[in-house]
């Protein structure tokens, strides 16, 4: 069995698993990192949204063999550590997570780790383009929430953007 190594939430991990197994299952079933959720397995619902080298990606659609030794994967569990200490909020979390708490966004909560990881990437993308998050950016977020928490998600992203 091939050895797969990458950096997960700041730490080097190595797993014995075939190249074609998607990263989501490596995280959830083999490493016990369950923040990224299964919602479809075909890169549609976005419940597993995490970051690779700082960019949003969906581990359900990436074979683990494509992830290099130095690639850094961040899941919701590792998000707080990516924020500078002075940006972290009263709960010691990333400003986007704090905005989520402030707006009490989650209902069932299942899609929320993916929503938060997507939100951080949307803010970073806008910032890289030298602009603020727009309504069009918000309309373009594909993460589905079957509880229908979209209203508070939109509010929280705008608030989180201010403190990021």
């Amino acid at each position, binding site marked *: 069995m091939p050895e797969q190594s990458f950096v997960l939430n700041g730490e080097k991990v190595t797993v014995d*698993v*075939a190249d*074609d*197994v*998607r990263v*989501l*299952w*490596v995280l*959830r*079933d*083999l490493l*016990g990192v*369950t923040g*990224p*959720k*299964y*919602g*479809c*397995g*075909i*890169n*549609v*619902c976005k*419940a597993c949204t995490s970051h*690779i080298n700082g960019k*949003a*990606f*969906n581990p359900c*659609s*990436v*074979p683990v063999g*494509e992830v290099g030794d130095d690639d850094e994967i961040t*899941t*919701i*569990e590792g998000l707080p550590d990516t924020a500078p200490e002075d940006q972290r909020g009263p709960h010691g979390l990333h400003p986007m997570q704090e905005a*989520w*708490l402030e707006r*009490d966004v*989650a*209902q*069932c*909560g*299942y*899609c*929320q780790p993916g929503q938060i990881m997507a939100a951080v*990437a949307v803010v970073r993308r806008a910032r890289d383009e030298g602009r603020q998050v727009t309504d069009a950016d918000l*309309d373009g977020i*594909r*993460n*589905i*929430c*079957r*509880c*229908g*928490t*979209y*209203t*508070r*998600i*939109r509010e929280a992203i705008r608030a989180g953007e201010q403190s990021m």
Partner: protein
Amino acid sequence: MSQHSGTTSPHTEDTRAVDGSAVADDSRGTSRRHFLGYVLGGTTLMAAADLGLFASPAEATIPTIPSIPELYDLNDLLTHAAMPTANLIAISVNEDGTASFALPRAEVGQGITTSTAMIIAEELELPLDKVRITLAPARPELLFNQLTGGSNTTISTYTPIRVAAAIAKLELLKAAAILLGDTIGNLVAKGGVIEAPDGSSVTYGELARKAASPTTKKVEVDLKSSAGFGIVGTPQNRIDAIDAVTGTKTYTTDLQVPDALPTMICRAPTLNGIPLAIENKAEVLALAGVTDVALIDTGVAVRAETFGQAIDGVRALKVRWQDGPVAGESDASVLTRLKKAELPMPALPKNPLAKTVSADFTFWFRSNSAMDTNSAVADVRNGKATVWAGLKSPIIAKQAIAKELGLGEADVEVNVVQSGGSFGRRLFHDAALEAAKASKAIGKPVKLMWHRADDARVGRAHPMATSRVRASLLGNEVLAFHQSHTSVETDFRHGLGEIVTAMAADLPAGLGNLGFAETIFTLTQEVPYNFGVVLQTLAETDGRFNTGSMRNIYSPDVRCANELMVDLLAKEAKLDPYTFRRKMLRIKAVRGVLDKVAEVGEWGKAMPAGTAQGIAIHKEYKGVSACLVEIDCRPETVNRKVRDAVTGPRVTKVTYAVDVGLPINPRGLEAQMQGGINDGIALALTSSLHLREGHFMEGSWDNYFYTRQWNTPPEVNVIVMPPSSDQPGGAGEAGVAASFAAVACAYARATGTVPTEFPINHGEISFEEKPRVPPVPQSPTDGLDHTY
């Protein structure tokens, strides 16, 4: 067929509170807050409530003029069913100063763990963060008191939980009085500390053992007056919010049960097809990671090291199938059959001057699939079974699993796990039963998860239905209003049916003889307008589908048809939709929320051509609501493009007012309304299942178009009305019906065409169907090309 009718004389008005309770309640004065309960024997304090000793607060009188749900509705039935065993609701005070309570209900996102913690914190005088709520496992001794449905949790548990908490506080005060050398009347309990006038104090944690009783004893207690409430009625954040945003909230598939390896099912290419034989078992067993392959009655189970490898196994399987019961059928053939089951409409009163207004509507199948697909962990070995799953009706699940496995109920343990949504689906135990079968067949523990494609295609659906409405109008008075609802059979075999059967003898006259569905229909549907002779009937047919409720049972469809007809009548009466409703409403509380949305949402303001407002009301769950929406149906909006998506008309603004009697957590209630609004939009505009050649086509969230960010209204304003009663109403489903109806009414006004089927886009197939063989799609490999 069931029917209920009411004759209302024009312009009568009912001023009762939204919970329908009669004014006679007030005459009970303080006795309404005086209750009996128990202190249970133990080493630390445990207090319990016993409501069985008390007469029911909801009087089951036989209605004559108002329709049945106004006097005795589904929530009264569920609340009454819960009463004989409410004494088993117990709160413990722990030595660490916390209080704990195992809620015999399921948290699925609706926020009941938070509202329950608030109720306990209020009555016990303990900070909210010191209250620990867990979900009780299946407890058959609770009989009917462990069903989460009908938005009934808070309605039925509010008083018992308060009584138990009040007794706990009283016992703490008694123990503190001895310790502090003062009388109870001089002591003040606050924030988990009891203080005497001399400044000495003792904490609940220090008292937990001292207040314990070696034996069980009866205690009388007075509940706190609502005037002194400091937590109930204030906006609070969810107690599970931090776990949710840090990814540590644990759902069924996150459980780490030793050796419970990922397991998926290979299912038939037609709905409910039956597996006959596996043709390549050895080949599949040889695949990397696959540990077991076993045939069960719903398909072939594949157990593997990872879910990815289980998917590979499912895709590689060659199975001989027997076709399911709807093989070859489509939406159109099911609708034809449904129309044949429609009963003749009763004749409207004869009046040669009256005008008859008619409208017929079709509501297609819709999926109640949640984000968290059907899943369960099961360990069935050595004559015992342990199961973990999100279950709103765990007692029925336990009984069904025991029966299926041939075990005694005592050998089956069923644990309730928090779920990633329900929307009606977790009333059933489909995954728990299937996991038990798979574990038994394989002889090892399994972590069963349905693939999204299965969850959408095979999972439960809200049944297809038609609604025919006829009304008779003379001038601007409505003489009669008839509505005949005909539906594919709704499955109530999750406990609600059993409750109805058990309660049948106690129901108001005439209801006891009806079947489950008809009883539910009669107890939930009402027309809160002065519409003369009102008659609403239900007929159900065709039990071949996997059905269930979907964040309401009949109400959203019935209300949508109803309110579209109200707009048609308003037009005939030459009155605007708001003015007409205002004139015709006979219940003050409904008019209160209608006026509120009209005012805040600026009803009647000038709108550009192709856009319009729509307004609608709903009354259910001991509460009332009104919704005012603005919709944009202009071509540039309707035709906007989003990849692999349905766009169409956009609801641009929603104003929603809700009066639930006593709102426990206004912030949670607002959240439930916001979610319900998105459900209403989906029902009106975008989401349905399409049956073709014996199976549903939809296999993913890009086939089944629940509201997405590009559909959701940019502006949403929810108004939680101030308390109008001392009893709470339901929240989880209360946002859907009025929203659905208001969007439909707005669409009709914006386009000039009253839609006759819902969702309005059902006629177009907006996606390419995924293959049925193999039954689940392979995961893509190009994820790194789509980073952002």
